[in-house]
């Protein structure tokens, strides 16, 4: 348990509730990258991810007085993000949507590999291919499985945290993660 981190969040929340916008800004800064990364891996569209994240922080701000001391701010924030994402994903079924081309991150060149890993270009390309295939298969998972799976693997959260964020019991969370892995395994074998 990281007490000082939670105390820091509590202080920032208290200050934000007193009207200090900079304190809320500090909270936004603290979690924005991890949140954006997670939402992007869930939505696979930068514009959608941006909309969801902006919406999430806005909702967090307007509901800040409802934040309970026993929550971790990051858990609470992600609960909001996931509910917002789900709504957006539901709407996609009926609308024409675009999924970003796989992999390319604005800041990253996939071809560059650090010298000390001794990974050949061939290995790097293979990894890239695997990543793309994996992303594609993860995207094909229904949100009910994709969300717990990503919370586990992308965010490394504990069962309890995932249960808190999704509102499911730890038992159900576990089953969903196991099933997600099963589905990935089957689909991967079909393709390779």
């Amino acid at each position, binding site marked *: 348990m990281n*007490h000082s981190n939670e105390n820091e969040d509590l202080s920032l929340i208290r200050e934000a*509730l007193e009207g200090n916008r900079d304190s809320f800004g500090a909270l936004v800064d603290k979690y*924005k990258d991890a*949140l*954006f990364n997670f939402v992007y891996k869930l939505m696979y569209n930068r514009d959608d991810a941006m909309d969801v994240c902006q919406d999430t922080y806005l909702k967090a*701000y307007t509901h800040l007085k409802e934040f309970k001391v*026993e929550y971790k701010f990051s858990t609470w924030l992600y609960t909001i993000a996931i509910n917002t994402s789900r709504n957006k994903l539901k709407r996609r079924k009926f609308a024409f949507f675009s999924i970003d081309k796989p992999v390319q991150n604005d800041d990253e060149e996939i071809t560059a590999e650090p010298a000390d890993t001794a990974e050949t270009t061939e290995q790097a390309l293979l*990894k890239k291919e695997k990543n793309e295939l*994996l992303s594609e298969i993860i995207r094909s998972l229904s949100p009910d499985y994709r969300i717990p799976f990503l919370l586990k693997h992308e965010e490394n959260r504990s069962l309890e945290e995932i249960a808190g964020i999704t509102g499911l019991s730890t038992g159900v969370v576990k089953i969903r993660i196991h099933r997600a892995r099963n589905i990935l395994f089957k689909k*991967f074998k079909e393709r390779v």
Partner: protein
Amino acid sequence: MECNKINDRLLNEYFDNELDEKTARVLSEHIINCAACGEKLAFIKGVSSLISDSPKVSAPAGFTTRVLSNLPLSGGTGETAPRTFFPGAIALNLKSLSAAAGFLLVFASVILFGSRHYFQKNVNVTFEVALQDASVVTLAGDFNDWNMYNTPLNEEDGVWSVTVPIKKGKYQYSIIVDGKKWYPDPQAEIDVKRNSKIKVPAMEII
């Protein structure tokens, strides 16, 4: 290729280190000899590594500025105004008064309003409680409008404490643990006269 002996759940739990030592060892030995389980486990490991190593996307530049510029203006969080010292028609912000004017006003208030808190002077009161397995501990009482979030305690070696400036007088207070448990319960009353330390009686959390 399917394994008839080990069920899917066990294999996953093995990967997640959720099995006790004995069961884990049994599984470990089985996996060495079972191609189906070996393949599945290797896949889960592979996926886990791929995701861990995958590039992390950052929030776009100007993200925070954009969030802040979209926040509702004044009073958006709906926080109530701080309780003023003087009840009734006269609502004054103490901080904005000069010392001399402050003294006069205090004197007047004692006579006119008969407040329980006779002296303006603050004393430092330290609240201390020993707790095991608590994550977040806060202090609420008459002196801070029973605001659960306002005053977190800091921990050192299982002892949680915070020092707050309080005007002399009688108060009720509580320590709130993880937002759920309140100590003492029912609330005790303290009579604050000087710098002091209050050891909050707490039931041991089982």
